[in-house]
């Protein structure tokens, strides 16, 4: 009997027949996520309803030495949820309850399957005047569990931090099925910050089943501005100028010339052709002193050769500005079969230099590139349209990716700011960390998951060129990741 034949009946007994997907078509779907990679055929997909069921599944998997992959909405772009080996996928769509909202303690407790946007809607409907801040681009569909697994970022990290800064505690099912609590509602806990360690560990250290998060009062005032500059360098210098003046905007988003041109065809902001870069600037906080701060921002932008600065005068205008930023991926994707979305960071003051480097690297290979950046965070998102049927172009994109990552590391930055390593950047992790450093991380992996069953063969460098976009292309024809 195959492992599937052995496990499926047992899983059905534990969870009920309707909570176990094992037909070929179902399994096929779960070989993918939002990345270009195709994984192996999974044994089965389970839809547990509570922590106890997750623990039972994990214990069963342990007895049969089967890997487990915790999966949210599958919106990750680095292949973090793509299965490798005969794995069981634990899918959280039935664990999507918001268990508590306590504005007096500034916290909320929920299951991992809650969709980010649904949580915000729920908090808004409660009318306490509180929200959960992190807003990754995928927030309409991505789950809080997935956001935790990848330490998701978004547009408001500059002032409010990434997901990790908002997660107070976790309930985790360890690889042996033990259920443990780390952190909690109180910020005062003895010992290591295990919550901080687990956030962003891409499901490789255990399965998160409950999340305690910080919620914050909504700001009294939010003002959105658009500033246009002759080039990226002027915009990036304005960003540094704003920060140096002691102003901490809620968001500072940058679009380059090519990005503006693409976006404007769909979201009619009216980006002028002569502008080389746009900054979307959001300031929030108390109303008092806001006018003065807005004037100061305008002065700084003008000092950096801004062509135009305008403040959104209505909710509709604000929404159009933000839509022009949020629609960027979709717009870019409509121009080619695949858009290679890159994610890397550099020290904030080196952003212009980094974007210039990206353009140079792509130009040298005859690749188109459009640039978005969370400018205040020094977080670049070069987008490269690729036709993977064109093997030479796919190979060029893979090379360009590697070179861009190496450039960011050399500038003191990171190979990923908010999307994670997954399978795409396993080799590139070696650009940042040497053997001793990786060994330290792997010691942590061994401590929590000694048999390597939690989302195996991810994050750490493997032999072979794993994160090859061409491998992803080949996999569409039935090829698989190594």
């Amino acid at each position, binding site marked *: 009997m195959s492992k599937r034949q052995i496990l499926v009946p047992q899983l059905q007994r534990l969870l009920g027949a309707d909570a176990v997907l094992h037909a070929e078509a179902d399994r096929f779907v779960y070989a993918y996520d939002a990345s270009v990679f195709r994984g192996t055929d999974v044994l089965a997909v389970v839809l547990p309803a509570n922590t106890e069921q997750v623990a039972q599944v994990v214990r069963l998997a342990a007895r049969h030495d089967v890997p487990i992959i915790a999966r949210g909405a599958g919106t990750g772009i680095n292949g973090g949820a793509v299965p490798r080996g005969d794995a069981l996928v634990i899918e959280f769509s039935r664990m999507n309850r918001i268990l508590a909202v306590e*504005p007096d*303690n500034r916290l909320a407790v929920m299951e991992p399957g809650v969709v980010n946007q649904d949580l915000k809607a729920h908090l808004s409907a409660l009318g306490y005047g509180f929200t959960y801040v992190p807003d990754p681009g995928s927030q309409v569909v991505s789950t809080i569990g997935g956001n935790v697994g990848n*330490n998701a*970022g978004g547009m408001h990290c500059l002032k409010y*931090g*990434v997901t990790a*800064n908002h997660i107070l505690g976790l309930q985790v099912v360890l690889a042996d099925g033990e259920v*443990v*609590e*780390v952190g909690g509602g*109180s*910020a*005062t*806990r*003895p*010992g*290591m*910050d*295990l919550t*901080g360690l687990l*956030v*962003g*560990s891409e499901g490789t250290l255990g399965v998160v089943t409950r999340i305690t998060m910080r919620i914050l009062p909504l700001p*009294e005032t939010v003002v959105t501005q658009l500033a246009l500059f002759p080039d990226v360098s002027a915009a990036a210098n304005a960003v*540094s100028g704003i920060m*140096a003046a*002691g102003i*901490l905007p809620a968001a500072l988003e940058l679009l380059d010339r090519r990005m503006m041109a693409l976006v404007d065809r769909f979201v009619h902001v009216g980006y002028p052709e002569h502008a080389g870069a746009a900054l979307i600037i959001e300031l929030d*906080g*108390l109303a*008092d*002193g806001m006018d*003065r*701060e807005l004037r100061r921002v305008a002065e700084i932008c003008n000092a950096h050769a801004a062509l135009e600065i305008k403040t959104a005068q209505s909710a509709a205008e604000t929404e159009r500005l933000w839509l022009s930023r949020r629609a960027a991926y979709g717009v870019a994707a409509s121009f080619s079969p695949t858009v290679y979305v890159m994610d890397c*960071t550099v020290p*904030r003051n*080196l952003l212009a230099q980094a974007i210039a480097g990206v353009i140079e690297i792509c130009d040298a290979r005859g690749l188109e590139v459009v640039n978005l950046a*969370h400018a205040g965070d*020094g977080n670049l998102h070069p987008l490269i349209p690729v036709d993977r049927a064109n093997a030479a172009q796919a190979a060029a994109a893979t090379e360009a990716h590697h070179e861009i990552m190496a450039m960011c590391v050399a500038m*003191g*930055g*990171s190979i*990923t*700011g*908010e*999307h994670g390593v997954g399978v795409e*950047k396993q080799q590139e992790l070696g650009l*940042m*960390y040497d053997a*001793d*450093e*990786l060994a*330290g*991380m792997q*010691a*942590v*992996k061994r*401590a*929590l998951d000694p048999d390597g069953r939690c989302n195996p063969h991810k*994050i750490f460098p493997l032999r072979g060129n794993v994160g090859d976009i061409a491998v992803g292309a080949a996999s569409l024809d039935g090829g698989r990741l190594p």
Partner: protein
Amino acid sequence: MSACEVAAVVDAALGASLATGDPVALEPYRLDGVAPRALVRPQTPEHVARMLALAAERGWAVVPWGRGHGQGCGDVPRRYDVALSLRRLDAIPDLDADNLTVTAEAGISLGELTQRLGERHLVLPLALGDGERTLGGLIAANRAGCKRLLYGDPRDLLLGLRVALPNGALVRYGRKVIKNVAGYDMPKLYLGSQGLLGVVVEATFKVQPLPDREGVLIAGFSGGPDAARAAQALFRSALGPACLMLLLGRAVQSLRRYPGLDVPEGRAVLVVAFDGRSAAVQRQMADAGRVLLAQSATGVAELPALAAETAAMLEDAAHGLHPEQPRVVLRLGVLPTQVADAMAQAVGTMNVPGTSFGAVGDYSAGRIDLLLTGEPHIGWERLDGRIHELRRAMGERGGSVVLAAAPRSLKAKVGVWGDLQGAGRIMQRIKAQLDPRQVLSPGRFLPDPAEG
């Protein structure tokens, strides 16, 4: 091997004169009465790494030291061969004002760092008021600043670390960027690790420009519950206080003795601070003042104190009480809404004839420091039953009670940390993997599996 022989072996291995076995030099490095066999004062990160490699080879136990402010918070050492002082590692290799980051060595005092940053009109908001503590100590203890509500905890500001691992490898985790999800977030693991997983030699933090304006309100209340209700009203509001600190007992008396302060009457005091744009601070001070009076404050005093002064004042209130007398410090962790009850319960439970107490509660952190002072003949070890009782009560609320300072006799009876449950077992497993030979501080924090 004698103390002098240990020192000689260290000097030979490190190729420099860095160690001493002189009993006088060792005296300040006693822990719960136990003296080390050698004091080693490395001058470079590489010295630290080589020292750990040597200790692993020789089977020595090493305890890293800053200035010792947090060393009371640890169980009686099981073994203790080398006191490793980081104080000579006090450089600032990188202060990047344009990027708003600073990289400093672990042995630098927070006072020195604050001053150097201040010269560039910058501030590390964790470092306020604890001038004598070191950056490494702050990381090991995961110590939040009094303005955490506005600026965040160490986990929100720490970007990277350079660490000497127990096997002698010198590694760097994180970068000077504010977003980085490449591999595990190892710097977080070192926060609160009590020097157990490696010796932090250097750290990179986010810094902030100094605020335009700071303001402080001091409100008096008839008791803790009233003060906590006022804190809750401000915590729940859209006003953005940087600090909400509750003071009780001798902490209030200490504040009253602080020169130039006009503290309103009452048994409890709430200190509220605001930082930011001038107009916003002015408006918040006015709004908060009204909230405090509506919440039955006996009076509200306003002082335009600088952040460091406010913090120093609170630090004094918390820790400056008759340090010459024997004392016990309990650190409770609860939810903000539990702070008032937990404070009352802790004070009630620990109310022993012949002692007096001071309590400082950081409302938003849910942290309460309860400090007991008294005469030497009290017999502190007899508090064991009361501490067990308090731990049971806090445990039922999901809270924690750490014995942050105590005489050895009491520590030996109740342990410093309490039951850390599943989280403690994970920490123990990480310790066993990263430090299999138990080089670093064996027995001081987690139960030591290798040695029972």
